[in-house]
């Protein structure tokens, strides 16, 4: 069973939100879902069980974070899908960490190309992947959730910092 849910909040333009949605869905559909071997679990798995989180920070004319998060089993499923592994193929935690980082990198790359570069000069950080990540994501008060997509085992979020 899969579920798709998207939420957008204020602070960014409608065009940007649409670009964010297209970028995330393009990446999810082309890299994660079609590959053989991926075992997408119920969407409920993503809520309240954040164990793996991949973050990319963007700075410049637009500032914030791109975030991919899911449970550890979900991260395994995504990684198996990205690596096109077959049943029984071994998967190390280091493979999962690298795959989740690359997943965030791909989402951020599409965002940069299709949305952020239109908004101005934006520089992306290298992906940071945390296993056993705490539930609280961004303590800074000036960050707001601009877009969120929940698909299967994973959720992708884009947080934009409010202009100072």
């Amino acid at each position, binding site marked *: 069973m899969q579920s798709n849910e998207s939420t957008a909040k204020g602070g960014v333009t409608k065009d940007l939100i649409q670009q964010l949605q297209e970028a995330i869905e393009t990446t999810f559909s*082309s890299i994660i879902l079609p590959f053989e071997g991926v075992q997408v679990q119920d969407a409920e798995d993503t809520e309240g069980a954040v164990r793996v989180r991949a973050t990319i920070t963007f700075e410049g004319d637009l500032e914030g974070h791109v975030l991919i998060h899911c449970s550890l089993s979900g991260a395994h499923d995504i990684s198996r899908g990205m*690596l096109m592994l077959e049943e029984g193929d071994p998967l190390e935690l280091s493979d999962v960490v*690298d*795959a989740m980082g690359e997943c965030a*990198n791909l989402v951020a790359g599409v965002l940069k190309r299709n949305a952020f570069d239109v908004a101005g000069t934006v520089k992306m950080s290298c992906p940071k992947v945390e296993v056993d990540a705490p539930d609280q994501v961004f303590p800074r008060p000036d960050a707001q959730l601009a877009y969120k997509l929940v698909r299967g085992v994973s959720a992708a979020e884009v947080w934009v910092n409010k202009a100072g």
Partner: protein
Amino acid sequence: MRKVLIVDDSATMRKILMRSLRQAEIKLEEILEASNGIEALAQIASNPEIELILSDINMPEMGGIDLVKNVRATKTADELPILMVTTEGGSGMVASAMESGANGYVTKPFTPEVLKDAIQRINS
């Protein structure tokens, strides 16, 4: 084609590229790997049979643009084609890579078919 060299700092992306080449049914004797431009140059020096390089742009130590410049100092685009595989499609970095002598580029994420088309365009 005998040997292809895949250059990317992400082990995941190197595996995706290897599997994509196989899924695209591109016949290869061997796929070599490097995680940055410096490692790639060492592979090229010790493997003169390499007939194609697939390279990322953003990498530590030595990136894809400097790799292209170094390769083109000794080999022409016909002698050793280089296909950039990058998230930076359409950006100034891709333009720099092309100006430096890359033969083409593919934007991540890609499908095996897109990769195959790009390789065939280079070889045609």
